[in-house]
């Protein structure tokens, strides 16, 4: 049983590596062949993640690839839409307005707190 679990976990890491790497490689191909800035590509991947999330497709990918689907920004977009739909189920229409940060609020607040802390502690390298 333990051996089985261990084996399963190794496969999890491999799937995360392959799927996460593939998503980043696709972004790199887009970046190298278009005039889009990294900001444009980040936005595009987030929106695509949200759309695929709303259609229920992204969750299947996340079930398969774990962090390989959750860690790229497309997973962030998926987290926004998933939180929204879950809050709509719980609250009704108010969920449309409270749900965006249901899951991602953790990350956004972490970004603000740690970003500010780092800005206070460190100076950018020239």
């Amino acid at each position, binding site marked *: 049983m333990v051996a089985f679990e261990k084996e399963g976990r190794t496969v999890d890491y491999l799937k*995360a590596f392959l799927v996460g790497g593939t998503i980043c490689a696709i972004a790199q191909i887009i970046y190298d062949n278009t005039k889009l800035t990294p*900001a444009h*590509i980040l936005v595009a991947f987030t929106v695509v993640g949200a759309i695929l999330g*709303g259609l229920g497709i992204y969750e299947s990918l*996340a079930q398969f690839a774990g962090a390989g689907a959750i860690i790229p920004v497309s997973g962030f977009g998926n987290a926004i839409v998933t939180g929204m739909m879950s809050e709509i189920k719980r609250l009704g229409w108010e969920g449309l307005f409270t749900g965006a940060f249901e899951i991602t609020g953790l990350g956004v607040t972490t970004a603000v707190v*740690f970003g500010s802390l780092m800005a206070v502690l460190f100076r950018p390298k020239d």
Partner: protein
Amino acid sequence: MDKAQQDQNAKYQQMVKEATPKPEHRKNIVLAFLTGGIICTIGQAVFNLFSKIEPTRMETTGTTQATMIALGAIATGLGFYDWLAEHGGMGAAIPITGFSNTVTAAAMEFKREGYILGMGAKMFVVAGPVLVYGILSSFIISFFWAVLTGTLL
């Protein structure tokens, strides 16, 4: 150097320019794949850890993303993420750590313009659009999903 020769030089440079980027692109893709893959593998370790503690998958997702955001911010503060982004390209930008990197880098960069109008105002200069369009697209999709499935009625 006469004009004809200069023209020919320019043409040659142009040809060299057009011919060279291909192998460079291939290298970029491999580096992006490896960098992104490694970051997601670290994310998987964090995910496995939280999946033992958190009661639901949604919470595991949130805490995993938040932890990676914290790690991305620290790596940016220490100057390591700049190096990673230089080599990894989109492999460093696309993971949530890259999102965190844009927040922290902007906060560090604009701190000299003051804490309110510098750091506070410009921290989300790149991450802001990600949130805005992530929320707008989610709002529209969730609305239609709710109407079509009858959840709102």
